[in-house]
């Protein structure tokens, strides 16, 4: 539009308006050129750590690529969509997407519901507030490897959970049961990440005007009605964030199937796309296939995130 305007004025022979040079500089560098200077480090960071690897991954996904020694004489021919065909026709990959779908269906609603309810309760607690907040946050900051060890002891065939459940315990046990392996991982991740999302909701709850609660009380609303009609709508921006973050983090699931179910077992029932990317790209020396899988995963996550933002975000978007 700027170019068209300039051409029109030049054709008219009209002089540029006062301050035009300043406006043009403002158009190129923005209203605050110093802002570019301050944001440059982050832009460089994004370019180096995000844009370059992403672009490189896309490039790799269209080639028969493999990691080689510097100076090694190797061919990495362009293979078109072969890697994508290989990924989409691989039953293990298709199953991993189903698995991650099951994971997200359990994990995301559970994360949103539990973290919102617990944050609301924690916001009202007076005694022991700090202790409780720290208690919920500790699993989040503890290394997954350490916690996985504890869960393995809890959920194995002779573990505490089965001892308590007795005859109700599933057979085979949780982590080697094809029906329970992925839900078990989803529960584990929900519990581990809960502290972080509670923190987000606690921050959001601080911004809910007290008047809304007072008005609800005046209108005779009970605690449940107040929660549903005041708290839930008031923290909707935080809910959108929690849904998006838990989806993105969940879609990148790796550590739990790698450690908790011994490499995506039983029989691939808990394999995630990222675990398959690791197997194909690092263990089996086919980064092209792994990169294609990664690109497919990114596209699907973006699609899901867009749908979530559209349907959960409402007017906030």
């Amino acid at each position, binding site marked *: 539009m700027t170019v068209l305007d300039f051409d029109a004025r030049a054709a008219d022979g009209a002089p540029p308006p006062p301050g035009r040079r300043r406006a043009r500089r403002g158009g190129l560098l923005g209203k605050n050129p110093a802002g570019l200077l301050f944001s440059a480090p982050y832009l460089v960071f994004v370019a180096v750590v995000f844009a370059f690897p992403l672009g490189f991954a896309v490039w790799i996904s269209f080639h028969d690529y493999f990691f080689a020694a510097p100076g090694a004489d190797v061919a990495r021919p362009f293979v078109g969509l072969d890697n994508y065909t290989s990924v989409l026709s691989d039953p293990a990959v298709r199953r991993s997407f189903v698995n991650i779908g099951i994971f997200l269906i359990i994990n995301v609603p559970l994360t949103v519901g539990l973290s919102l309810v617990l944050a609301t309760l924690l916001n009202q607690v007076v005694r022991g507030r700090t202790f409780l907040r720290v208690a919920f946050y500790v699993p989040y900051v503890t290394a997954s490897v350490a916690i996985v060890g504890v869960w393995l002891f809890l959920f194995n065939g002779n573990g505490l959970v089965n001892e308590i459940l007795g005859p109700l315990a599933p057979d085979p046990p949780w982590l080697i049961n094809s029906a329970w392996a992925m839900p078990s991982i989803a529960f584990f991740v929900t519990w581990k990440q809960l502290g972080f999302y509670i923190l987000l909701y606690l921050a959001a709850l601080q911004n809910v005007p007290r008047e809304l609660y007072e008005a609800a009380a005046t209108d005779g609303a009970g605690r449940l009605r107040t929660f549903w009609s005041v708290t839930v709508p008031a923290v909707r921006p935080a809910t959108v964030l929690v849904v998006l973050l838990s989806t993105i983090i969940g879609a990148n699931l790796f550590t739990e199937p790698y450690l908790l179910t011994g490499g995506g077992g*039983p029989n691939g029932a808990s394999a995630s796309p990222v675990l398959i990317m690791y197997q194909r790209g690092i263990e089996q*020396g086919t980064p092209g296939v792994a990169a294609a899988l990664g690109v497919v995963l990114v596209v699907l996550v973006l699609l899901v995130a867009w749908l979530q933002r559209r349907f959960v975000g409402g007017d906030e978007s």
Partner: protein
Amino acid sequence: MQRRTRVTAAVLTAAGLLTAAACGGDDETSGGGGGEDGGRGDITIWYSNNEAEVAWGEQMVEAWNAEHPDEQIEAQEIPAGASSEEVIGAAITAGNAPCLIFNTAPVAVPDFERQGGLVSLSSFDDGDSYIEERSGDIAEQYQSADGEYFQLPWKSNPVMIFYNKDMFAAAGLDPENPPLATHDEFLETARTLVSSGAAPMAIWPSPTSEFFQNWFDFYPLYAAETGGTPLVEDGSATFADDAGLEVAEFWKTLYDEGLAGREAYQADAFADAQAAMAIVGPWAISVYGENVNWGAVPIPTSEGKPAEEIYTFSDAKNIGLYTACENQATAWDVLKFATSEEQDGLLLETTGQMPMRQDLPGTYPDYFAANPAYEAFGDQAARTVEVPNIPNSVAVWQTLRDAWSQSVIFGEGDLQEALQGAADEIDGLAGQS
């Protein structure tokens, strides 16, 4: 703001793609490794991080450095990582691999070779002759498809059946002559061990999905059953035959009857007395030591064979000479020094692992006389099968593991169909270059 954001994003993406294209455009650079004209000078080496091998490595380096002041070795343990193979693969890509790595897994060698990370030892004048004179016919398994050696066969850990004598006695079995020679005997013994309450599990190999787990359940028994047939021969999978089916049915029976554990045990089930038997190599002797009253017998077969006819999986670790090495002539000399008869003897004494040298019992008679527990392993070392040196080796083993996990461990689907399906897929993988 939105338009500027989009412009910025587009610029960043374009920059990323352009940089990527630039980085990816070095396809035709020359290089790669041949060691015949390598220089001389200081070198670096990596060795394994277990205590016994570190002790051997330190004395070897000290002995070499004392005699070669102008060609010093700087040694360190392999850096920590998810696996040694991933660390080495990353070092090759980064161009900072050391000259020698005394822990190169044969399964990773085809990939390292494809990466241009390994020097062909055959390029040295005495390369082939040194390897073949030291290791004999067994060296052939370590040749690449075109007959070159990109690894020096170093040491093996031929696996056998370890059993807990106390548990066998508690189950009323003869601990000195346990009935474990045939599959039927083994199964009956396993049933007795578990039903008597002497052992929670008869045997507990790891049931997890990693590609290498079949080396410690299927492969030793398949090697024994077939008299030393590798998983892939002449580019074709071999295991979808009667022998493979027999071995698969044997293991499936163990899992179905609850004699082997379907859950991963988080430590060593044999050491913790959770399993009465284990499939392990001679490294375990020093580990179990006095804590377990153990015995060892050869791998069982369906019909039973004399011990001197039984093959097993080698569980070998080899030595690779890497192309990032500047002083490859020195590295080759160090490699020969480290695998000399004297150093092999010291390796045997220090670690209990078997140097891949012809006539091991005859070469070190004093050691085996003084350590009779190792004698059977020394004899077994002459009859081992290695993972085949083929393209896509890891993918091949992962394919088998996936089929095994489904059909044998968890008993889903038809066994024969699962083996045949895996074999067909492996034929395709092994045929790729």
